Structure formats: structure tokens, C-alpha cells
């Protein structure tokens, strides 16, 4: 199996074709961050809504390659229902993992762990990252 076949796993394709929590809401209780990767046209917006200390909702929209769009979808599913601290921990470790940096492997990245294959494609790491970076920025912005 080529590394690319390894990367385009069913989970990723499934999220690419049936993106979850897609479409933005016009609701001031959400925090919105927009990130672009101008070199390839990737363009993702992420919204998060905190209720108390919990991620009550997380939404995404945009366009880009399969890695970019699917990882935005996976992000939203992973985050909804987590505490803010859990969410931050997962996201920072996810970002370390895709960048091939040491990360805490005891943390359950859930479905997002399928992106481990991206490490073989350093030029695509940014695609797998921007939604997650945008998400972290929404949490920061809320502070």
C-alpha cells in the first residue's frame, strides 16, 4: 500500500464527502475564526460556542482539499462536548502529531488519530492543521 493510500483512509474520505457540522451560524454566542492557506486556496472558518466550561457546539465551513475539509469535519465531532481544557489538550497534541513533533500519546485523539499518515507528507501538514489552529484561536479569542 502506498503512503498515499495509507493517508486517504476511509474515515478521511467519509468526512470529506459527508462533512459534519458544516455551515456557519449567525449567532453572537459563537466565536468565529477564519484561516486561509493562500498558496493552495484552502479557506476554512471555524466557530465554537462555549457554555460554561464545555464546548457546546463547533461548526465549520470553507473549501479546500480533502485533507483540509475532512480534518475540519473531524475537528467539530471531536470537540463537541469536551471541556475547554480537554479540547485544548487534544488540539495541541493533534497539531504536534501532524507536525511530527513529540506529543503525549496517552491522549485519545479519537478519530483524528487517522491523520497520523500526514507525517509522510510534510507539504500537506498545513492542510491538516488550519482548521485545528482556527479552533484553538476561537478559544483564545474568547478569553
Amino acid at each position, binding site marked *: 500500500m502506498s503512503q498515499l493510500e495509507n493517508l*486517504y483512509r476511509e474515515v478521511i474520505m467519509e468526512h470529506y464527502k459527508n462533512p459534519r457540522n458544516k455551515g456557519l451560524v449567525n449567532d453572537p454566542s459563537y466565536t468565529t475564526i477564519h484561516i486561509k492557506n493562500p498558496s493552495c*486556496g484552502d479557506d476554512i472558518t471555524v466557530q465554537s460556542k462555549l457554555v460554561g466550561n464545555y464546548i457546546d457546539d463547533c461548526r465549520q465551513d470553507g473549501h479546500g482539499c480533502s485533507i483540509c475539509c475532512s480534518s475540519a469535519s473531524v475537528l467539530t465531532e471531536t470537540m463537541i462536548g469536551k471541556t475547554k481544557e480537554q479540547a485544548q489538550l487534544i488540539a495541541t497534541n493533534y497539531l504536534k502529531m501532524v507536525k511530527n513533533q513529540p506529543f503525549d500519546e496517552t491522549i485519545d485523539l479519537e478519530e483524528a488519530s487517522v491523520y497520523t499518515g500526514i507525517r509522510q507528507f510534510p507539504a500537506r501538514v498545513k492542510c491538516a492543521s488550519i482548521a485545528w489552529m482556527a479552533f484553538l484561536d476561537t478559544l483564545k479569542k474568547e478569553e
Partner: protein
Amino acid sequence: MENRYRNDFPKLHQEGYVYLDSAATSLKPQSVIDAVTHYNQHLSANVHRGVYFESYEATRLYEESRQIIAEFIGSQIEEIVYTRGATGALNFVATAYGLPTLQEGDEIIVSELEHHSQLLPWQAVCAKTKAKLIYLPLNAQGRITVDGFKQVLSSKTKIVALTYVSNVFGFLTPVEEIIKLAHQVNAVVVLDAAQAIQHVTIDVKKLDVDFLAFSGHKMLGPTGIGVLYGKKQLLSRLEPIEYGGDMNDAVGKYTSEWKDIPHRFEAGTMPIAEVIGLGEAVKYLKHVGLDQIEHDTTRLYRYTVQQLKKIDGIQIYNEFSDAGIIAFNLIGVHPHDAASFYAEQQVCLRAGHHCAQLVIQWLGIEACLRASMYFYNTFHDCDQFIKTTKEAVSFFKSVGF
């Protein structure tokens, strides 16, 4: 080896390397690499001010390159200004010529084919002078035509800033007629030759073009060096926009005097090794011959497009490129996804908007793939590209795209 130039390019000694990204930057022949190394290793002296051998020799080579380049495009020596690239050259024209010349209501003709380096400097000048950008209508294929140009040319036109060859479609602009028409209304023509200089024989005097810009790294030369050609009587009128060592005559506490062109525009230590390397690149281009280059590149291009068209699931955006460029997509596959597939097979091409977002918008797409070939490519390269394309189509189908 079927291609007699291939051996001169050390990168092509790498087994299985299929380089189809020459429009982004060209590979460098050994002679260019060696010229840079020679300066770094055996000279390593500053120019224009030294009496010892190494400094004198560096100066001689630096000015000899200017002569080689001038001969290559048919200009006078002093009409060749070294810049850090085509981008630097085009910004210079916009700032040094455009900014002080233009007034509210004046018009600059551009096209949606422009590379950002020819578009954005003029946008900025318009913001400052209130001159207007006027887009000529491209024809259905996406070409700049004389007809389209006539529709926007008027007595308000002061500058015509167009690409000579588009970096996405590879279409050649009919520059001869456009320049003649532009001069009838006294407009000044600035050509972006970054994709033309390596493909088309350019004679600036015959063309009668006013300014022409190109980059070393797309014409077999080093990075960090480019050229602005400007007509002597135009250049002589311009004030420098960068000031520093080596561009001045007498310096006083409050006012100073400049050298003559072209040195007036070359402030500070210039990219000496890179200038010398560029001279060597031009020698290599002359040695092969631009006619030969075009002949070889065109053959490869025609063959590849014919093969590509046979593949189901491919969309080609520019079937009749004049410069070996194929802009295309795998239908339903984002070009960034596709590019990774090619990369895994060592087939090097580019995905994105190619610094030409307006033509991507004109196409109504998000981005595309671009394969660009040059005379050092082979039919074998083309076959690898075709084969990989076929595999890519079925791979992405198989994983569910």
C-alpha cells in the same frame, strides 16, 4: 540518452526525477552552478572599488554579464539594470516611472492574466495616484488579443502593463501590434517577460518596447537576480528609488548627485555571484538556441496534450499553450490532493493559483495543477507524467473521490 542537454543539468542525473515545474523555476546547468561557485570560491571580492586582481576580475565579470544580456535582447549596455528579480524590476517601474507620472483619471491597461508581480504594483500605484486599472477583455480561450486591447485603448491610456507570456496558460501576447497601438496614444508599454525570455527571441529595439522585466531563476540562472530593460531616454529621466553605496557621485551632507544609468539604480552591494551566474545562463541559452528550445519544448508539449486528452476525468484549461505549460485538473479532485499523488512518483508539478488569482477566478475554479516543460525534458518524462495521471485518476476514484 535521447536528450543531448540533459547531462548538463546535475539535478537530472537523479534517477526517476520528472521535473515539470520549470515555469516556477528552471533547473540550472553545471556551467551556471560553476560560475556561482567560482565567484564564491576564487573571487569573493566586492566590485567597482578594488584595485587588486579578484576585485577587478569580479567587476569585469559583473559588467561582462551586462553586455551578454544586452546582446541577448538587442539593447544597449546601459539599458540593462540589475534587480533582485522580475518582481523587483516591475515594482521599480511602477514606483520610479508610474508614481510620479500618473494623475487622476489616467488609465493603466492590464489583464486578468497578469501574475501578481505585474498586477499588484499597479494596484498600489492606482491607490496612490487615483489612476485607474483597466482590464482588457480576454477572448474565450483566455488570450490577450489585439481586438481586446483596442476595446480599452484610449487617449487616457498612459501605461500598458501586460504579460508577454502567461504563467498559467503559456499564451503569447501579440506584443508587436499592441506596442505600436499603445505608442500611437503615447502610452508606455511595460512587459512582464518572466515567462517569455526563456522561450521567445526578444529584440527590444525591433519591438520598441519601453520597459521589460525578467528573472534569472526562470532562465537557467541563479535566484536573487533579475533584469529591467528600459529605453535609455526613459531610464535617464528617472530618479533612483533606492539609495546607497556605489550609485552616487559627490555626496554632501544635505544633497548628493547620482551616477549615470544604469549604475544609478544599483545601490549597495549587488548580487555579484548571481549576476555572473546569469551571464553564464544566457550563454547557455544562446548555445542551445531559443529556436531549438522552442522546437523541443513544443514537440513535448503537443505530444503530452494529445495523450492527456485521451484520459477520462481530466480537464485541460489551455489546449494551445505557446510555452509548454499545461493547466489542468483531475475532475472532482482538489489539485492539492492530486499534487501529492504526483509527488509520490517524483513527478514535480505545481498546484494552486500560481500567483495569478485573477485568471483562476476567470476560469471559475479554486485552483489548478500546472505542468510546465522545458527543453531538458524528454518524451520519457511526458510518458511518466501521463502514466501517473492515469494512475491518479483511478487512485482517487478508488478511495472514493
